[in-house]
């Protein structure tokens, strides 16, 4: 059994070396296809998570302008409660929010020791959604409320995220199908080229009675390797891109609005690797099925 596996692996390595440039292009295309798939998939899941984490439509977040001591903060909370349409007001201390953020984003120790960029905030719950605009205006009239972006609601964010989800589904679906088709076709053709360039060996194998598995598995492994390697490259690229976006997200989006940037590296890379290998084996199987018939 081990002897057979060894022979098949040797043949697969010969097949991979035989088509150097074609192998490289098949791996690159598989990597691009899986990068698109992984990137869109990750974006989609991030949006879903983001949507779930958005505050309730009945809530507003109010940032305090500057620093207030405990007494004035309580007084301010009382004043906000008196605004018509406000159901209740809860203080969100800045230190607590920063700690939660650092934990949630899994930021490094060094990052966590940076100065806290959060202001103290209040979560203001509304009695009715229709009061949102009126209450927002009333809140902004308070002298201790930060004027620019001082009052935020999640309604527009939610609408934007839902719109983006639809777009990602549509564009992503089309791109994924096209890129998988391109990668599959390239792997199919690369394996076909290997079959053609190894006609002699295949003829000998067929004549001496090599089993179908012995003849086919090297080609399936070739396709599987191309797909898996493409998946690995895609996973690593996605990891890098995701880490970069995460590091920039605070600058781009602002702390409170930054998207969920956590990247589950190992599961994503493993998924892309397995998906790539499956795509490669499937494409190779189709290629081999057509060109490796033993008899009439």
């Amino acid at each position, binding site marked *: 059994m081990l002897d057979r596996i060894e022979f098949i692996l040797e043949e697969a390595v010969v097949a991979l070396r035989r088509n150097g440039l074609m192998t490289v292009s098949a791996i690159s295309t598989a990597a691009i296809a899986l990068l698109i798939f992984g990137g869109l998939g990750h974006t989609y899941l991030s949006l879903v998570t983001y949507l779930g984490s958005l505050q309730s439509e009945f809530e507003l977040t109010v940032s305090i302008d500057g620093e207030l001591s405990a007494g004035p903060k309580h007084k301010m909370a009382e004043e906000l409660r008196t605004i018509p349409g406000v159901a209740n007001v809860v203080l969100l201390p800045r230190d607590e929010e920063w700690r939660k953020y650092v934990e949630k984003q899994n930021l490094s120790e060094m990052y966590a020791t940076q100065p806290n960029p959060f202001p103290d905030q209040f979560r203001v719950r509304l009695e009715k959604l229709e009061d949102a605009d009126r209450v927002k205006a009333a809140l902004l009239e308070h002298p201790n409320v930060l004027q620019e972006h001082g009052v935020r609601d999640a309604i527009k964010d939610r609408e934007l995220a839902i719109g983006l989800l639809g777009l990602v589904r549509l564009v992503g679906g089309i791109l994924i199908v096209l890129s998988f088709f391109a990668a599959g076709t390239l792997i199919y053709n690369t394996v076909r080229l290997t079959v053609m360039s190894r006609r002699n060996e295949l003829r000998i194998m067929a004549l001496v009675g090599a089993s179908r598995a012995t003849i086919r598995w090297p080609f399936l492994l070739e396709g599987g390797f191309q797909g898996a390697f493409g998946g690995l490259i895609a996973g690593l690229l996605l990891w890098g891109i995701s880490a970069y976006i995460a590091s920039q997200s605070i600058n781009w989006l602002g702390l409170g609005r930054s998207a969920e940037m956590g990247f589950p590296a190992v599961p994503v890379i493993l998924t892309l690797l397995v998906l790539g290998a499956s795509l490669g084996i499937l494409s190779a199987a189709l290629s081999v099925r057509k060109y490796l018939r033993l*008899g*009439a």
Partner: protein
Amino acid sequence: MIEFQNVSVEYPGPIFGLNGVNLSVVQGEFLFLVGQTGSGKSTLLKLLIRELLATSGRVLLEGRDLSTITEAGIPSLRRQIGFVPQEIGLLPQKKVYENLMYAMRAAGHTRREARTRVPDLLDRFGLILRSDAYPRELSGGEQQRIAIARALVNNPKLLVADEPTGHLDPETSLDIISVLEQVNTRGTTVIMATHDFQTISAFQRRVVRLEHGRVISDEFGLGGAGA
């Protein structure tokens, strides 16, 4: 051992590769299959290794109808038959020894089995001293010997050679037929297809002549029929 019962093979056209062939070959026999190009020799041999299926009639090998063998069963059939193809097809990047090792391992033998059997085969065919040579460094006759040795890696009961002397000079052709006779003396049935009437006239063996897909004579020795 082999039985062709009213076998016809029809190619698109329609052209008959074989047309109503009846032929029996017994175990241990040596048989020349002669005829001009297009007479149906290769078609008949391809039926034996199940590269082709008869359009009508039956081909039996040791009582088994070859048309009943599925794609999955073909490797097992081919391990019972040694086939020397028209094109020698040695792997140019492999040495003589490696060519035989490759065939044995492809056929399912372990590396250890191959390491024992390959030197035996090379010795038997007088090529032990050439085992480290590449095919391009061998003469046509030596290359053909290797192709015959390769066909014997599974120790088959039947050896089928399609025009093994096609590209060789008369002297080397005689040598190759002698090699096949040696194989036959060990009990292996040998069927050799050739268009070279001249060379085989030197051997007193059964000769089946084909023309336009039909058997036109089946006799012992050529008897000057087409020479």
